[in-house]
């Protein structure tokens, strides 16, 4: 047992309490400069890039293997990337699903795989002392998955059940329909977890094909964070992954659907719903776009933090909601700007009216200098605070690698934010936040809310699978 200096005492210093001015906070001390932590960039002998955030504060390592192919490569089998990656852990090398699970669990480690829009990730979290054993298991899972037929069946059954489960959540229904409205049948138009119909069609062959095509040395990178020493760590990775080969697949063309510029209102009917879950927005931009930083700045001010305009309006002024927020889903290709909020059924139309007026305001009047200063301080400061743990730093480094950003991107980020002016933000708001070009999806009780919503325009009512009500 470790001893520690536990002291109990009583503070008895006496201060002239009356003389303290409590009307303003104590003056801050000298500003501390938080710079984005350094990371190393190494290469395995077969050319796989390895990004390393070395930090020995805890005896823990997190490691991600990222394949640059995600749900946008599902093709005619919506959900394939997620389905196949889930199955990586269901049998690999000489081990079946239970044997794999038992070895991973024994180490107290987590090893999991999941798909995003643009990428598929196999993630490992493990005590440093067990890293070599865990890496062997991870290598089997990544390089030698067997996709056993009975596990494919089990995964199908579980995934379909999970989908049905999700559909009972109004926020999920709104998100799915919102995506469908924006992207149609394009690569970003379906959910990462697919549809019941597509899951029923996926076979072991599709999984094998997805793995063989996308899990190749030329299509992946590693990001490691924590208690590792780069030289030693690269030797370990070379031992497990150094013989891996294969060239990256051809990139898939990405085209945005036409005819998405007019305002639309869609209600996903959820009879008896006591709340309405809303998504309002439009397609914005890709992560590498030069407008990205000004857009996240105006977004933060509008709905990206607690003190934002829409949260102050809908929550603090009107009490319509537990919280209102907006976000920019910038990806490899253009993602959406969107507002997300759940409100009481009775105030659905009133809340949507407030959202539209806030959007009108942000595209017609420049923000105040005070608001801008506040939001810049928040963005710069919170980015710095979000580098507290090695894992958090790794997630920024992962973005650098995935979206091909310059290595010094986050070092320069604070200056890029500070350089933004009010006029520039107005231009950006007009470009990406115009309500006349937005789709509003509301999952709620159509019989109660549709009539009142018509004051904003024609309302289309669909069921929970997106099929129009007749």
């Amino acid at each position, binding site marked *: 047992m470790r001893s520690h200096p536990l002291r109990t005492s009583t*503070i008895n210093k006496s201060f002239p309490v009356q003389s303290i001015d409590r009307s303003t906070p*104590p003056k801050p001390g000298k500003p501390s400069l938080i710079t984005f932590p350094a990371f190393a960039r190494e290469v395995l002998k077969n050319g796989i890039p390895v990004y390393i955030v070395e930090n020995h504060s805890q005896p823990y390592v997190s490691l991600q293997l990222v394949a640059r192919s995600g749900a946008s490569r599902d093709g005619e089998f919506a959900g394939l990337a997620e389905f196949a990656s889930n199955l990586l852990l269901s049998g690999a090398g000489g081990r079946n699903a239970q044997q794999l699970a038992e070895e991973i669990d024994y180490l107290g480690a987590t090893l999991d795989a999941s798909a995003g829009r643009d990428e598929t990730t196999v993630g490992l979290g493990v005590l440093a002392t067990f890293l070599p054993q865990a890496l062997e298991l991870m290598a089997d899972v990544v390089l030698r998955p067997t996709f056993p037929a009975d596990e494919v069946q089990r995964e199908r059954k579980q995934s379909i059940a999970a989908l049905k489960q999700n559909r009972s959540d109004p926020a999920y229904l709104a998100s799915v329909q919102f995506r469908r409205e924006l992207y149609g049948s394009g690569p970003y138009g379906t959910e990462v977890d697919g549809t019941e119909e597509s899951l029923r069609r996926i076979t072991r062959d599709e999984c094998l094909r997805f793995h063989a095509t996308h899990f190749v040395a030329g299509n992946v990178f590693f990001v490691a964070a924590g208690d590792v020493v780069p030289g030693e760590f690269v030797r370990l990775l070379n031992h497990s992954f150094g013989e891996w080969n294969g060239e990256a697949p051809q990139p898939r063309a990405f085209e945005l659907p036409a005819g998405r510029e007019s305002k639309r209102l869609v209600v996903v009917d959820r009879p008896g719903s006591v709340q309405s879950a809303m998504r309002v927005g439009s397609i914005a931009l890709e992560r590498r776009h030069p407008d990205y930083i000004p857009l996240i700045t105006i977004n933060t001010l509008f709905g990206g933090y607690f003190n934002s305009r829409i949260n102050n309006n809908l929550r603090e002024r009107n009490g319509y909601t*537990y919280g209102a927020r907006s976000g920019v889903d910038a990806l490899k290709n253009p993602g959406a700007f969107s507002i997300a909020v759940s409100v009481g059924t009775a105030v659905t139309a009133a809340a949507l009216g407030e959202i539209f007026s806030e959007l009108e305001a942000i595209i017609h009047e420049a923000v105040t200098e005070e608001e801008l200063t506040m939001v810049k301080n928040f963005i710069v400061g919170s980015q710095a605070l979000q580098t507290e743990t090695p894992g958090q730093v790794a997630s920024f480094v992962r973005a650098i690698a995935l979206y091909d950003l310059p290595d010094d991107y986050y070092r320069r980020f604070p200056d890029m934010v500070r350089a933004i002016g009010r006029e520039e933000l107005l231009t950006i708001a007009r470009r990406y936040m115009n309500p006349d070009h937005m789709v509003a999806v509301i999952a709620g009780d159509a019989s109660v809310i549709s009539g009142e919503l018509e004051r904003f325009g024609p309302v289309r009512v669909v069921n929970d699978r997106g099929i129009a009500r007749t």
Partner: protein
Amino acid sequence: MFDELRQGGERSSSVPITAGIDFERFTHANGLEIILHRDCRAPIVHVMVWYHVGSKDETPDRTGLAHLFEHMMFQGSQNVGKTQHFTYVQGVGGSLNATTGQDRTNYFQTVPREYLGMALWLEADRMRSLKVTMENFENQRSVVKEERRQRYDNAPYGLWYMTLLEMLFGGTPYGWSPIGDMAHLDAAPLDAIQEFHRLYYVPNNATLVVCGDFDREEALSLIDEQFGGMPKGLPVGRPSCAVEAPGVQRRREITASVPFPAVYLGFHSVPIAAGDAHALNVLALVLNRGRSSRLQRAMVYGTQTAQSVAAFNVDMESAGLFIVLATATEDSTADRLEEELWGVVEDVRANGVREREVEAALNHVRTSFVTSLCRLHGIADALAYYQVLCGDAGRINTLLDEFNAVTAADVERVARTYLLRDRAAVLHYLPG
């Protein structure tokens, strides 16, 4: 090469698996508990205040007050305007939040180190001079109603936890959940809220934790400046939570708009500080941690009657509950799920668990413990938790040793002692 690497695997990391949190604890003359932990990895500080008040301090006809109060604490005080707490903290890039539980309410922020004084000023101002007005009260009451709809009433299976609490602890202050009954909030007069502040938001009911990069003497001076002039409040009474374990099994059904049946088994366990708490936590991990765990192996991978399963031990200040649950797949039923859950539980009770299962659980405890220490918030919260609810912040440094002492025999014993079928609460959530 393989063998060499294997040996490499047994290298002990240069960093030990231990908390090793050096901290100092002080009690101010006005009763405020103060815990300081210096950690200069980054130029930031975390300031957290725990008030030893939660939903169990409410009366049965006025539930939801402790949580509503958490909202009121952001509505302004003498020198801080409505929601200005957010403006101050987020305006310097900081992050903040607050949570309400059954035993405590906590408030916290992380800010750059030069703003330690500001964070203390904000916390002290609302402890000393919260503005409880009718306008703020009404506004936050409607926010809380939407919170309840979003997280419980309108969420699939959203009512299961509060139902189990009522079934197991009905008639005691643990019988309701922090979100509370909205009719009670509607009926609550303003002076009930003001009284709540007067009774519970006092220095002698609060623990202030400061973690991060600060100068010790400067921090102590700032704390004394901001909190020192505050008078001690009345002694705070604690409700009696004597729980009588029911002598019979209690059953209930909820029919709601959910896609599949789900089954929840609830058992009385033990309070936080009780000797059996760690063994119960290990039992929960053996049942449900990872794909090789008992429940997942049996029901998700074996019979495939469940799409998800869970087991956990909730240890509270004066009581505890152990929960086992499963949500069905398409062709399964609630009765089938219940039968299989009992099968897994009875097997552990009859045949115990293997040493290897306990070792796996302990490896998980070590892993999650060291990851929680990666953030100042994790350290501050653990220090406050052990100080307020167990009376000893130093438990953060002995916790892993305490867990290491848990054996397979302990796990078997607590399963036999607490997972009693004829005294369980059984809840079926059914599609309707």
